[in-house]
C-alpha cells in the first residue's frame, strides 16, 4: 500500500517540556506543502511532568479521524517507551534519543529503531538548561524533515515568520533543525517509504481548533457579554474570544472595550450573568463542560420557563463527575436536551468540526433570541482543542442578527398594556421588551407560576396554557435548527446515524465499506428538536446504526423519544474510552451486525 502522503505518526513527550511549538511547526510545514493533515493532542490532567502525546495523521484523501495505529513513533519519553512501542504497526519505525541506551527488553523485531543522540547534540550546541530541553524538540522536527521529506524551505520560512523580531531565537531554532536533519540524513536511508510529496489540497483550508472557531463565531454574531468559569476543555474558547475582542472591539479614540468578559466565581454565577445580560438585551454566552452544565441546571430551568435567551457552549469531556477532564466524549446529549427539573426541553446544536463550531456559534444566538430560550452548542474536547483542517471560514456581510420579537420604544408607544407571554402571532413565540426602553414595556419576569399576561398565578388552567405554549414554541424550533447532513448511498438498505465529531470516523468508514461493496445511507443530526426528515430517514431503513461516543447510547435515546422509532430499528455503535472515534470502531460494529444478519 502506497504510503506517500498517507501515514500517521505520533510524538511522545512529557507535559511542560515545550514540545507544543515543535509539533505545531511540523503540522504547519506539512499543511503548507499542500498535504491534508490533522493533529490530535493527548495530554494529561496536570501541568508538568506527565506523559503527553501528539498524533499527526497525513491523509491525501483528507481523512481527519484518529488512527489508533502508527507508522512512526517519536519516542521522547522513556516513561512510556513500552506503551508507545506497542502502538506501532508491524514494519514501523521508532525514533528515540540514543543519548541513553535503549532497554533491549523493549525491542520489537518487526520495528526499525532510529536512534539519534538528541540530548547529547543539543547539550553540545546549547548552553541554557531550558534551551537545551526546548531545542531537543526542534531537533526531532529537523530529523523528521529528512525522514519524511518535509520541505526544509517551508520550515525555514515558518521560523522566519515566527521569530522575525527575535533573530537569536531564529538562529538557535534553525540550528536545532539542522542538527536533527543532518544526523538523520547521515545515518538513515532518507526519506522513509512513509513520506511527503507536495500537493495542492490545502489552498482553501485552515488549521484551526473548534474553541477558537466558536469564539470567532461569537464575535461575528455580535455577542458583547461573555461570562465563564475556567474549565478544561472550554477555557480556551473564552481566552480566544478575549483575544479577538482586544483586536476588534476597541473603541477607536478611547481604547475602551465594546465587550465585557466576566470571570464568574462558578458556573451557577456564569449562567446567571448570561441570563441577566440577555434579559437586559445583550447577546451573551458562557462556555463550559459537563460539570458546569450540571451546576447550571437550576438556572437553565428558569431561563426556559421565564423565556430568556441563553447561549451555552458545552465542550464535552469524559464523564461522569470529574471523569477524565482531558479526554473527549459525547456524554451530555441527554442532559442538555432536557436539563432541569419539571418539564423542560432545549434547543441543541451539534457541530462536527471547527468550521461548524463557527457556524453553530452564530446560529445559536439567532435561535436563542428568536425562540427566547436556552440554546446549547455541544462540541467536545476533540473538536474544541485539536487542530483540524477545515475549509476556510466565510462570512456573508448581509447577515443581520435575528433579535426575535423585541418591541422598540416606538412600537411600545402604541401598546396600551403589554402582555409578555401572550401568543399574539399564534406561533408560540411571545413578544419581549427590554428594561429602560419604555414605561409601557414594563413586566415582571419570574420563574414562579405566571399566566399569559405575565401575572403571577396559582391557577392550574392559566399555568397550563403558558407551559403548553412554550412546548409548542420549542417544538417549532425543529424547523429552524440546521437540517441533518445527508449522504445517500445508491442501493443502500441500511442507514447510519451519528452526531458531532464522529462524522470524521463515520464518513471514512462508509467509504471503506463502500469500497467493499457495502452501501449505507448516512445521516448526521445537527440540531435538536428533531424534524420530520430525521424520522423519515430512520423509517426508510430496516436497520439504522447509531454511532456515538457515550456508554448509554444517548443519541439513540433521543431518537427513540423524539421520533418514536422503535428500538429494534436502531443498532447502537458506541465507543467511549476517551479518544476520538476511529473508522475501525464503526467498520467492526457494522460488519459484525451485517454478518449476524447474513
Amino acid at each position: 500500500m502506497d504510503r506517500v502522503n498517507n501515514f500517521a505518526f505520533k510524538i511522545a513527550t512529557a507535559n511542560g517540556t515545550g514540545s507544543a511549538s515543535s509539533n505545531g511547526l511540523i503540522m504547519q510545514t506539512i499543511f503548507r506543502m499542500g498535504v491534508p493533515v490533522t493533529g490530535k493532542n493527548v495530554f494529561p490532567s496536570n501541568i508538568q511532568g506527565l506523559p503527553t502525546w501528539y498524533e499527526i495523521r497525513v491523509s491525501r484523501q483528507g481523512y481527519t479521524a484518529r488512527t489508533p495505529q502508527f507508522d512512526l513513533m517519536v519516542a521522547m519519553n522513556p516513561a512510556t517507551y513500552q506503551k508507545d512501542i506497542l502502538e506501532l504497526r508491524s514494519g514501523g519505525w521508532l525514533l528515540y534519543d540514543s543519548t541513553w541506551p535503549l532497554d533491549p527488553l523493549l525491542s520489537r523485531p518487526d520495528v526499525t529503531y532510529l536512534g539519534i543522540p538528541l540530548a547529547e547534540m543539543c547539550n553540545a550546541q546549547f548552553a541554557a538548561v531550558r534551551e537545551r530541553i526546548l531545542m531537543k524538540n526542534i531537533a526531532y522536527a529537523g530529523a523528521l524533515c529528512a525522514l519524511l521529506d518535509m520541505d526544509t524551505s517551508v520550515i525555514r520560512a515558518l521560523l522566519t515568520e515566527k521569530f522575525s523580531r527575535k533573530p537569536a531565537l531564529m538562529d538557535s531554532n534553525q540550528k536545532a533543525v539542522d542538527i536533527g536533519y543532518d544526523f538523520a540524513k547521515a545515518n538513515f536511508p532518507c526519506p522513509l517509504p512513509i513520506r511527503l510529496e507536495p500537493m495542492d489540497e490545502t489552498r482553501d483550508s485552515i488549521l484551526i481548533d473548534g474553541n477558537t472557531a466558536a469564539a470567532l463565531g461569537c464575535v461575528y454574531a455580535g455577542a458583547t457579554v461573555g461570562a465563564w468559569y475556567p474549565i478544561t476543555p472550554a477555557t480556551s474558547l473564552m481566552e480566544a474570544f478575549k483575544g479577538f475582542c482586544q483586536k476588534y472591539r476597541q473603541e477607536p479614540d478611547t481604547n475602551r472595550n465594546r465587550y465585557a468578559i466576566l470571570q464568574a466565581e462558578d458556573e451557577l454565577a456564569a449562567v446567571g450573568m448570561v441570563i441577566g445580560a440577555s434579559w437586559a438585551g445583550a447577546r451573551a454566552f458562557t462556555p463550559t463542560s459537563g460539570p458546569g452544565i450540571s451546576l447550571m441546571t437550576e438556572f437553565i430551568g428558569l431561563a426556559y420557563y421565564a423565556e430568556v435567551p441563553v447561549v451555552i457552549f458545552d465542550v464535552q469531556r469524559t464523564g461522569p463527575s470529574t471523569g477524565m477532564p482531558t479526554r473527549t466524549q459525547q456524554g451530555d446529549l441527554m442532559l442538555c436536551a432536557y436539563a432541569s427539573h419539571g418539564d423542560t426541553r432545549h434547543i441543541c446544536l451539534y457541530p462536527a468540526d471547527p468550521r461548524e463550531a463557527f457556524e453553530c456559534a452564530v446560529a445559536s444566538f439567532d435561535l436563542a433570541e428568536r425562540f427566547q430560550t436556552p440554546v446549547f452548542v455541544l462540541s467536545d474536547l476533540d473538536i474544541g482543542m485539536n487542530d483540524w483542517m477545515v475549509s476556510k471560514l466565510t462570512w456573508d456581510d448581509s447577515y443581520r442578527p435575528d433579535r426575535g420579537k423585541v418591541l422598540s420604544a416606538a412600537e411600545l408607544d402604541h401598546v396600551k398594556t403589554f402582555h409578555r407571554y401572550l401568543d399574539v402571532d399564534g406561533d408560540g413565540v411571545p413578544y419581549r421588551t427590554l428594561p429602560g426602553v419604555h414605561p409601557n414595556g414594563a413586566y415582571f419576569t419570574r420563574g414562579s407560576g405566571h399566566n399569559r399576561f405575565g401575572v403571577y398565578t396559582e391557577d392550574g388552567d392559566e399555568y397550563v396554557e403558558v407551559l403548553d405554549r412554550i412546548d409548542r414554541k420549542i417544538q417549532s424550533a425543529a424547523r429552524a435548527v440546521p437540517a441533518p447532513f445527508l449522504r445517500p448511498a445508491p442501493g443502500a438498505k441500511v442507514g447510519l446515524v451519528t452526531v458531532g465529531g464522529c462524522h470524521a470516523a463515520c464518513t471514512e468508514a462508509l467509504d471503506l465499506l463502500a469500497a467493499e461493496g457495502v452501501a449505507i445511507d448516512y445521516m448526521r443530526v445537527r440540531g435538536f428538536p428533531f424534524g420530520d426528515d430525521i424520522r423519515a430517514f430512520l423509517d426508510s431503513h430496516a436497520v439504522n446504526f447509531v454511532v456515538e461516543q457515550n456508554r448509554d447510547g444517548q443519541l439513540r435515546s433521543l431518537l427513540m423519544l423524539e421520533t418514536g422509532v422503535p428500538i429494534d430499528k436502531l443498532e447502537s455503535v458506541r465507543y467511549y474510552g476517551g479518544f476520538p472515534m476511529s473508522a475501525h470502531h464503526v467498520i467492526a460494529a457494522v460488519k459484525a451486525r451485517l454478518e449476524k444478519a447474513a
Partner: protein
Amino acid sequence: MTYIAKPKVHHPALLKNAVGLIRRDYEGSITTLCAGCGHDSITAAIIQAFWELSIEPHKVAKLSGIGCSSKTPAYFLREAHGFNGVHGRMPALVAGANAANRDIIYIGVSGDGDSLSIGLGQLCHAIRRNVNVLYILENNGVYGLTKGQFSASADPGSLNKKGEANTMEAIDGCLLALTLGATFVGRGFSGDKAQLVPMLKAGLAHNGFAFIDVISPCVTFNDHEGSTKSYAYTRERNVEVVQADFVAPAAAITAQYDPGTVRNVLLHDGSWVRLRKIEEGYDPTDRDQTYAYIRERQKAGEVATGLLYLSPDSSDLHEQLNTVATPLVQLPYADLCPGSAELEKLQRRFR
C-alpha cells in the same frame, strides 16, 4: 432630616416631583405579605426614595431572589422591569444585566436566607466586583417563606418560636461587606423610615455596590420574646451612628452644623451625602475604624445603624472592565462585527 421631612408638610400624596409624578406612581401591586411585616415598611421607604429623587420608573430595573423579601419588588415601581430569579442568585443576574446596560438604575432586594445562606458566595463576589447596584438585604433572622427556620444572620442564643436557641455564630452582613472591600455599607431598621430613606437615596446615587442591611422583623415567625430580630429588641438596641442626609446635585450645601461633626462626601454623579456623625470621632470613610466600631457595639449588645461606611473613591465593574460609555446593548452591530474581509485576512494566522 428636614430634607426628607419636608414633603410630609404639604399633603405628600398629591405632591408632584421633578418629573411630574406623585408618590402613587412609584407603587406596585398590593402586598401579599403578612400584616405588619417589616418588608412592607422597606417597600414604602423605597417608594419614597425613588419619588424624592424624581427617577423615571422605567429607567430602573428591580431584581430579587426567592423569599418573602424577594417578593417585594412586585410591590413598588410598577413601571420598572422586574426579575424575580432563583433562590440566592440575584447578584449574578444583576452583574450580567449591569454589564449589558450600564445606564439603568439597578436595585436588588434579598433576604438573609437568600443572601447569607444559599446566596452567600454570589453576594461576596458581587461586592468584590463592585457592581453598580443598590443591594438591600431585608434581614429578619429567619427563613420567612419556609416558616421560620433560623437563617445565618440569627444571633447565637436567639430563640426561635419553639424556644430553641441558635448555636451558631451570626453572619453580620456589614462586617462581611467591609471585609470584602465594599465601597458603601449601611444598616437600617424597617421601623425607622426617616433614617432609611436618605440612606437608600445615597445608595442609589453611589457608583458601585451599595450594601444596606435592613433589620426587618418577621411578625409571624421571629417577633417574639427571646428573638434578637424583633421590633422590640431592635428598637431598644439600635444605636444610630451616622445620620446621612442626601443632597441632590443641584442643591447647595448649607453647613448649618458644627463642622467638627459633619462630613460631606461628593458622589460621582455630583450629588452629596452629608454624614452627620452622632458619635464623636467616628470617621465613616475609614473602613477599619468602622469595622472596629460595629464590633464594639455588638459586644455591648447593640446594633449600630446608619450609613456606616462610604468609600470616597469607588470604581465600579465597568471602570474595572474599561467598557465603553455607551451601554453595550446600544452598540450598533456594525461596531461589533469585523466583516468578511477581515475574516479572510485574520485566517492567515491559521495557515
